[in-house]
């Protein structure tokens, strides 16, 4: 575990992709099986055990330290796992105590451990590990292992062990499971290439680039097909026959996570071996619901009959990767589309339909459709349209983000000017900056205009802007509440933030009555006096235009 921890520690500071690859490959080379396999699993997100909650970690540290010293330390460090790792009292056990656990031991134990045994086990490990080990362990068990390494990068690093291409590992990956003994044996030339035996394996997904205005000039509209970009979650529905001839159906997230268990109501819609790429949506009376509604269906521990009834799952299909066991990914998009159309027609199930293509002749025409989807075929589902997708008609289905094949073109985000009201210190990297901002807009109060908070944002700005806002906050604090500072927000004194967001919904939890989706700071308006910021009425109007989504 300490060796894996040192790798994570080093990776967390290393900005360069190639240097990250070298660090990971170096680790794979030096670390024996099965530890390196579990490390690969941890880096690719393939480990699944019950995560420990932050509350448990707090209880553990409370039993070992003075609460006041913990509070001061946490406030300073800003990250719970790191604070606990640093604060945990030094090892005072006998010198012949057991050695620190290996990563394999940690993973194996977590997989079988009962919930009630977890606290004592964690405390034991924290005693045994060094600081970096404690930090890595806590990140691992709380599910917060974010160190800037994608699953793709980790697989590429593994591939490099055998001078293989990342693509080679991706293709065999679906049938593999931690600790990947067969993969490492193949990469080190000790065994044949692993065979993918899963009857319904995940196919690494093809992703799109965000399109910029300047890209259009070099693109020929005739070479592209366009579809709506739906505001749901992208899934891959794969069906295949196992050795008994029974049909196995699995749903995967775009990262390959098996999420079949969350949608039992959709599984029965599949009757033939195939792999469909599509959008998971909630449909009521044939109408696509907003992402807010879909969210009610996600993140639930158990899927109850009532949940299924109230939030019926639906698949809107846009691509066919295989059919009847035949891989179609090398075919051009137009060919796959034809087969998809006939496959969906053959299934003839109300829970599955086709994502329609948008007819357009020029980029201007498509821009008009994107601005007003309802008049371009999206009809009642306009609310659930996030933008449009452009796909080259002759493009094969290539895992990853190949250049120039698929593009996403989002609808313009909503923008308002709001006034900074409160700022809070960030966490982690930003623990020494005021980086979480609550902003408000004007509304009529009992005595004249007043600002009412409408949202909170903590990203969108550059590092330079962060420093500027932080300086503004420190110089214009009028009140402090713990980690929060209230800053000057008068009609002629204060900071105006241009806030971009994805959508609006009514909210009873917010004093203003509205809630924003994905708000972010798009610009600092030092030039604008707060009195010229937007009013709540503007948001009300936008909300009406959005068709009164309820959250």
């Amino acid at each position, binding site marked *: 575990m300490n060796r894996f921890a040192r790798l994570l520690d080093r990776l967390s500071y290393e900005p360069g992709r190639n*240097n990250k690859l070298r660090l990971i490959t170096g680790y794979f080379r030096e670390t024996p099986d099965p530890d390196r396999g579990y490390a690969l699993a941890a880096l690719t997100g393939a480990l699944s055990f019950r995560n420990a909650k932050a509350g448990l970690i707090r209880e553990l540290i409370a039993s070992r330290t003075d609460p006041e010293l913990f509070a001061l330390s946490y406030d300073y460090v800003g990250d719970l796992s790191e604070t606990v790792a640093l604060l945990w009292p030094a090892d005072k056990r006998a010198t012949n105590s057991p050695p620190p656990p290996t990563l394999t031991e940690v993973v194996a134990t977590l997989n079988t451990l009962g919930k009630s045994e977890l606290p004592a086990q964690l405390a034991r490990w924290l005693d045994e590990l060094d600081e970096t080990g404690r930090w890595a362990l806590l990140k691992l068990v709380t599910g917060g292992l974010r160190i800037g390494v994608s699953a793709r990068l980790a697989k590429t690093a593994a591939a490099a062990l055998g001078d293989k291409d990342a693509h080679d590992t991706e293709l065999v990956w679906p049938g593999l499971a931690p600790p990947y003994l067969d993969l490492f044996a193949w990469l080190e030339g000790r065994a044949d290439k692993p065979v993918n035996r899963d009857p319904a394996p995940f196919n690494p997904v093809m992703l799109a680039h965000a399109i910029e205005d300047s890209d259009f000039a070099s693109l020929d509209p005739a070479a592209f097909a366009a579809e709506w970009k739906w505001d749901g979650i992208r899934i891959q529905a794969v069906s295949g026959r196992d050795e008994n001839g029974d049909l196995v159906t699995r749903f995967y997230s775009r990262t390959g996570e098996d999420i079949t268990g969350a949608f039992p109501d959709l599984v029965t819609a599949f009757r033939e071996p195939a792999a469909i790429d599509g959008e998971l949506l909630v449909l009521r009376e044939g109408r696509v619901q907003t992402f807010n509604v879909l969210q009610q269906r996600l993140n639930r521990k158990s899927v109850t009959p009532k949940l299924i009834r109230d939030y019926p799952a639906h698949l809107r299909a846009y691509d066919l990767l295989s059919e009847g066991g035949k891989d179609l990914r090398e075919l051009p998009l137009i060919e796959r589309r034809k087969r998809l159309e006939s496959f969906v027609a053959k299934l003839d199930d109300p829970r599955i339909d086709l994502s329609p293509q948008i007819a357009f002749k020029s980029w201007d025409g498509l821009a008009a459709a994107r601005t007003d989807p309802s008049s371009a075929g999206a009809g009642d589902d306009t609310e659930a349209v996030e933008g449009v997708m452009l796909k080259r008609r002759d493009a094969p289905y290539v895992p990853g983000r190949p250049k120039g094949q698929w593009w996403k073109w989002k609808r313009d985000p909503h923008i308002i000017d709001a006034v900074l009201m409160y700022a809070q210190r960030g966490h982690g990297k930003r623990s020494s900056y005021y980086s979480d901002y609550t902003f408000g807009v004007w509304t009529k109060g009992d005595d004249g205009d007043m600002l009412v908070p409408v949202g909170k944002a903590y990203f969108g700005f550059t590092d330079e802007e962060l420093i500027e806002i932080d300086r503004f906050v420190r110089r214009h604090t009028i009140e402090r509440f713990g980690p929060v500072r209230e800053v000057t927000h008068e009609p002629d004194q204060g900071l105006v933030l241009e806030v971009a967001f994805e959508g609006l919904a009514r909210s009873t939890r917010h004093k203003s009555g509205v809630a924003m989706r994905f708000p972010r700071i798009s610009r600092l308006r030092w030039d604008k006096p707060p009195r010229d910021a937007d009013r709540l009425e503007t948001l009300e109007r936008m909300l009406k235009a959005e068709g009164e989504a309820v959250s």
Partner: protein
Amino acid sequence: MRAHDILMPGPGGLYCKPGDFYIDPVRPVARALITHGHSDHARAGHGHVLATQETLDMMRLRYGETFAGSTQAIGYGESVTIGKVTASFHPAGHVLGSAQIAVTCGKTRIVASGDYKDARDPTCMPFEIVPCDIFITEATFGLPVFRHGDAAGEIDKLLRSVALFPERAHIVGAYSLGKAQRVIALLREARHDAPIYLHGAMEKITRYYESRGIDLGDLRLAKGVAKADLAGTITLAPPSSLNEVWSRRFPDPVAAFASGWMRVRARARQRGVELPLVISDHADWDGLCATIAATGAGEIWVTHGQEDALVHWCKTKGLAARPLALVGYGDEDEENALPTTDTSSA
């Protein structure tokens, strides 16, 4: 006489009324006693300065011959009578020549420790416990998350990185006075015998260390060396130069930083550090607590740093403790740093 009639904090620094002098004053005064050569403690323009020979030499190097009206050198363990008090100087283990100043008046002894560390340092005299009634302690790393561990382990981490990336240059950000020479000395102890390169700003002070009998091996200026020749080498540079144009003369440099602050990830990342090295010239939390207990002082005054936590700890141990609201002392590592937290800039 009560303690704060002997020494009291004021806007100019710690003032001793019965001796009419200041310790580490932050503005020009008639008579100053200086603990050590760092710029936030040793300022120019005082009438008379009493300090160790090394501290006086460092002030002369930084400010020129006319840094004070007159000077007087004092050795460790020596004492002088000034007005109604006696002042004596004792090793602080912080940097070459650094001292704690004990002020005795009648039966009461107050020790102003300046900056100190109880960890091993091959470039200066080890810290010495001075029994006293009141101990004035710094609190730069006055939080229990700061445990500095063994500096040799961090040097090992640096050398392992040099071995892993032989085509890259390693630039170690370190404060020019003290930290840089300690890192070099530790590298030599770890048998790294290759030439070590210096940023120009470090040359004068490093050569001064050598002139005091501290062997630092083959040192060269990075200036003028061909880029390719810097692959696989280690260069010491002021922390602020890590992200400057200056660093572009190195092949794909790894930005390392030797500082106690490197214990906290956010601090390291904020500065774009890729290889944090936890090497500190200040006592860590355990060092602060152990030192406070060992002095036998019944009252603790806490200054510059994380006063709250240390004052709280003292009280849980039954010691009278209070923060001294002294301003003007920062952590020397923070020169030219990004905006810092409230707590550390206080």
